[in-house]
């Protein structure tokens, strides 16, 4: 049977269609599409569950929701054999260097899903001990909101990530920017921006740094 690529209609890139008259035993497609298709459908997760989101992630991976349908059959509990880091739960500052080390140990190409409010923003833990969003220490591809997100929400985030992977182009760096941390502070968001975003809000005077 013959398969020929159909020109991209949107941002999704090429797909493969059956070419009935030319039903020979060959497939013509773009290498981009083939590579991305195989990558998107075999995203091996590296679960980094630190809190209740980790429990919800386990439910997502278990039989009822069955992450294996998305090609995520193998939980890589080693970052060396993982493609997507799923950070589920709040990250204390003490764990920040560990999380960054795990991210650095993952081979390219690699993606990160920030699962839940705490991993994405610190959530309600606006305290001395918790990282206010893991995007300050590692680059994040997909944020999944929720406290914790239902398995459907995580799967939707995974499908968004698959869509993002399918949109990448090998020859075009703009589709996959290599995010480098700030050379002096080694943070992925400028320090001034971090401080601006984490200033106290409202009238909670007891939470400012200057209050006794």
């Amino acid at each position, binding site marked *: 049977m013959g398969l020929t690529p159909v020109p991209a209609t949107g941002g999704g890139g090429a797909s493969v269609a059956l070419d009935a008259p030319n039903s020979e035993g060959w497939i013509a497609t773009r290498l981009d599409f083939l590579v991305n298709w195989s990558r998107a459908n075999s995203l091996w997760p590296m679960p980094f569950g630190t809190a209740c989101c980790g429990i919800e992630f386990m439910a997502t991976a278990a039989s009822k929701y069955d992450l294996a349908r998305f090609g995520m059959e193998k939980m890589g509990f080693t970052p060396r054999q993982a493609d997507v880091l799923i950070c589920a739960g709040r990250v204390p500052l003490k764990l920040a*260097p560990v999380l960054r080390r795990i991210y650095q140990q993952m081979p390219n190409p690699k993606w990160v899903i920030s699962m839940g409010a705490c991993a994405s923003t610190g959530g309600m833990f*606006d305290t001395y001990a918790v990282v206010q969003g893991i995007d300050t220490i590692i680059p994040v591809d997909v944020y999944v909101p929720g406290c914790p997100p239902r398995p459907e929400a995580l799967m939707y985030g995974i499908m968004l990530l698959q869509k993002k992977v399918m949109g990448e182009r090998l020859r075009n760096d703009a589709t996959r920017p290599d995010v480098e941390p700030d050379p002096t502070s080694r943070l992925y968001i400028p320090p001034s921006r971090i401080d601006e975003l984490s200033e106290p809000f409202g009238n909670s005077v007891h939470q400012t740094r200057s209050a006794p």
Partner: protein
Amino acid sequence: MSDARVITAGGALPADAPAPATPRRVPHRGGAENPSVAALRAQFGGAIGRSEVVWGETTAFVARERLLDVVRWLHADPHQRYDYLVDVTAVEFRDAGQPLQVVWHLRSLPHRRFLRLKVELAPEGPLSVPSVVPVYQSADWLEREVYDMFGIGFDGHPDLRRILMWEQYREGHPLRKDFPLRGRFSRSEQLRQALAANPEAHYSMNELTVAEAFGDLPRDVQERLAAGERTGE
């Protein structure tokens, strides 16, 4: 520790003691005081301050200087035998001038008793109490936690370091009332300092416990550690 006799729970009770029952209608304040307090007063006199019973649990205030003697005696005396240290913690009150309290929860399994000891520390005075690690080995990490969170020193502790926050933590002791909830440094500075920590440091030969357990490790692990290898790489 001093007595190697194996004692089962309730074993020291007299044979005609009533069967244990769940307490009902426990008053908020008042009620039967733990008999250990009267025994403590007879033994240590003025070193035992006031005592109170709240929700059926007895609290005794102890002078700081005699604390280790009191705990040692409670642990060893055959009529007390407080063989289980449940918790060590501390309290700081919001009102200025109120003393800090260091709290020990003791339980006597043979006699089925619970006793709470408290030592009051003036906030301006030296914040230190005697360590009870010589009596209860389990106090090690509990006292480290109190030190980490409150800055209260434990004299005689074998290894008084931070345990929850990392050891290079510079912002103070988080559970003190003068500690701002978000910490003293800016967020970016906190991140920068946290990221500067070496995540491998706790698994190296520098770590005291690993060095102590070195002789028990498998030979290949010994060789790798001796060659300077860090785990996790």
